[in-house]
């Protein structure tokens, strides 16, 4: 089985979010970049299929060379080969089109991406990719098994779960639950050494036109201070929630 894992390169979840260039660019100064957490759950599941069922695992990223350390980390975790399509990722649709063009030239049984990236929260690339390739798609995927040429995937829905059957190839949007947090792998020294020898191939983009673009970032207005209510005056809290906040 050949698995392609699509990874984003995002600011660590604890990063302070600031902007530069008149609030048109994200301020990367002092920011630690990591594999997008939702993608990492997917990658870990892919490595599980490699270890248990002999799958080949490739990772791919659409972006600039600044993401190469993230791709090396994926290789150190256990992926066999990395690709980077060398164009800045500005618009979800163009990223999906670049990935679709790559997949059309190669052969994969399963494509795993994250539910969403934690920077732009678009949750769009995996679905667009599946639709462009005209194959099945399961988002918010919290369980994945194979049975011959079929996959059994579980999707988290509002208030529950849905179990779905699809024919390969397919795309899933992974998240926590696909593997547990405790299953995530920290690369060991052997993995890091091996990763240096593994191929990281840079591919020229096809060059699609972007149709969405961020023109200005804004930070939320500073919040008013919290109103503290004494622990022995619950009536006051109820009054505030009813009359001031209007929420009960």
């Amino acid at each position, binding site marked *: 089985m050949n698995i392609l894992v699509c990874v984003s390169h995002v600011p660590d979840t604890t990063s302070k979010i600031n902007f530069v260039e008149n609030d048109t660019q994200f301020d990367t100064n002092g920011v630690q970049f990591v594999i997008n957490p939702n993608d990492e759950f997917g990658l870990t599941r892919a490595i599980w299929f490699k270890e248990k069922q002999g799958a080949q695992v490739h990772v791919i990223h659409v972006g600039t060379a600044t993401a190469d350390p993230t791709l090396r980390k994926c290789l150190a975790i256990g992926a066999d080969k990395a690709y980077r399509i060398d164009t800045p990722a500005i618009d979800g649709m163009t990223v999906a089109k670049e990935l679709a063009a790559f997949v059309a030239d190669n052969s994969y049984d399963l494509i795993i991406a994250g539910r969403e990236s*934690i920077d732009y929260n678009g949750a*769009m690339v995996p679905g667009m990719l599946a639709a462009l390739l005209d194959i099945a798609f399961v988002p918010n995927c919290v369980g994945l098994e194979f049975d011959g040429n079929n996959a059994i995937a579980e999707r988290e829905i509002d208030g529950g779960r849905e179990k*779905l059957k699809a024919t390969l190839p397919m795309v899933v949007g992974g998240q926590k639950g696909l593997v547990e947090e405790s299953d995530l792998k920290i690369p060991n020294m052997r993995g890091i050494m091996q990763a240096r020898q593994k191929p990281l191939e840079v591919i020229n983009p096809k060059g699609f036109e972007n149709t969405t673009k961020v023109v200005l970032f804004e930070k939320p207005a500073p919040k008013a201070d919290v109103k503290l209510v004494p622990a022995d005056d619950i009536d006051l809290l109820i009054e505030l929630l009813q009359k001031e906040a209007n929420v009960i």
Partner: protein
Amino acid sequence: MSILIFTESENNKLKRNTAEVASYGTALAEKLNKDCVAVSFNADQAQELGKYGITKVLNVTNAPQQFDAHTYASVLTHYIKSLGATHIILSSSADAKFIAPLLAANTNAAYVPNVVALPLEKQPLTVKRTVFTNKAFANTTLTAEVNIIGVGNNAFGAVEQAVNCVVENTAVEHTVANLEQLSITKESGKATIADAEVVVSGGRGLKGPENWHLVENLAEVLGAATACSKPVSDMGWRSHDEHVGQTGKPVSTNLYIAIGISGAIQHLAGVNASKVKVVINNDPEAPFFKAADYGIVGDAFEVVPVLTEKLKAFKSQS
């Protein structure tokens, strides 16, 4: 040249979030001076959308009863093309976020989700959306022939503006599903984090799963959904689908009550979009107090049962 809105339904009934999507569609139609048409699937009472300014609904009756993103997207694609729709409006529910990327690919559209207001500019179409899990906003342009806007949950609100609404039941040729539903598990009658107006959430401060009756009892009085912090779900005290935060579920309710949650930056990001936040914590230095509207510094085991009893009395009066 018109606006098409996708109004979701479940068990033949419109979902609660259709009020917000319809209100947004109506307001956008006024702003852009266009028609607005709603498309629903197997909805019995689609004329209810008239309450929010919708004059015409195409109610599709031959698509699968159960939501199926692939086939529903093919139906919506048909209508986008046949009506010449230029602006597509849907919610940010799990189902809407499933279908929107498929629609965008089918129609080569520009798609922006998590939009919090009517467009700032008509030309080029510019919308304000949340990014970095609610830590910032990004004004984003959409410049395709078909532009899809995903309205952030509880961001625009429902605006009543009653008009006469005509529902046309229709049947459309659609693709065959590429997923087969094997089973669905859903707790019935329980408020969900996505849909509830109030969410009550517990953290490590509750010391163990055996103390969750504090959260559940308070939630029951308020008709609220229950949620938890990441450590609580990681330790297996509560199931994954209750985990709210950056890598869990986003929360954008009217009222979020956090009990014994210190307020890690990832948790705050996930719940920031909620309108009013109440924090109960015995540590006055807990970072959550800085992000809260109302706070009680006190022992949850003492405060929460009193709050539950008093709210019960309050609710029975009102």
